[in-house]
């Protein structure tokens, strides 16, 4: 994947992480998709056994099949949309900044940037059985000057990322000493 299409990298900027949500967090969507795929099959067998005369009518049978086709295509679209929502949420960490790209829906996309040297607090939280077992969780990043917080949601190894972010922020702070002094005045 070429990051240059997503962010305009500065000449001294190197990408350290590209983070996506942990793949396990997509499993409930796959489960829901499987259940939704089985609904028309179950409904067809129920109707065929309970009211066989209804489906014997050719017009009703054709309408039922067309409705089934619409239902299946809508289910594929729902699944694909959920995948886009899942997969296009990404967090890019460079040696200069953090770029938070969140796809909320098909026509709603938010991109937030944060300079590493402005980071004040980094919190990693792992909640729940699955998160603990499979080592994924949230990383919340707060700055001193802004009330906004960037949260990496359900990313793998949140503790490791927290440590890396703190060390990257320290390095970047040394590089931006002048900017920090100006901010202080």
């Amino acid at each position, binding site marked *: 994947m070429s990051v240059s299409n997503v962010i305009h990298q500065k000449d001294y900027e190197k990408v350290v992480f590209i983070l996506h949500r942990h793949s396990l967090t997509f499993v409930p969507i796959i489960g829901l998709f499987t259940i939704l795929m089985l609904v028309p099959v179950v409904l067809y067998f129920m109707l065929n056994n309970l009211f066989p005369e209804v489906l014997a009518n050719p017009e009703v049978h*054709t309408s039922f099949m067309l409705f089934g086709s619409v239902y299946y295509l809508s289910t594929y679209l729902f699944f694909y949309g959920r995948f886009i929502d899942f997969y296009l949420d*990404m967090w890019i960490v460079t040696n200069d900044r953090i770029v938070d790209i969140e796809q909320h829906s*098909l026509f709603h996309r938010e991109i937030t940037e944060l300079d590493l040297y402005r980071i004040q607090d980094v919190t990693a939280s792992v909640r729940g059985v699955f998160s603990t077992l499979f080592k994924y969780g949230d990383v919340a990043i707060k700055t001193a000057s802004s009330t906004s917080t960037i949260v990496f949601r359900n990313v793998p190894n949140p503790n490791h990322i927290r440590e890396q972010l703190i060390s990257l922020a320290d390095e970047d702070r040394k590089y931006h000493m002048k900017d920090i002094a100006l901010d202080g005045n």
Partner: protein
Amino acid sequence: MISIPFYTVLFAYLIFLCIFVIFSLINFYHIIATSSLTFVSFTITFLVFALTILTLYFTWQIISQVNWSQNLILFDTNWF
């Protein structure tokens, strides 16, 4: 008795197909525009595309044998 020509159902289905194609293309455009075409996103896109083709093929198998010039009865007093 209230009835409509049966081909009306086919037109409604075709309108739905147009909407489906537009939304699928917008989804795929998002993957391309954000440079997220990886093995994972390609596999999911291929799966959705293959399922769509299969569904459309089986739908075609059914609707190609239907006489669309007949009327679809929506309400008939003889039903009661």
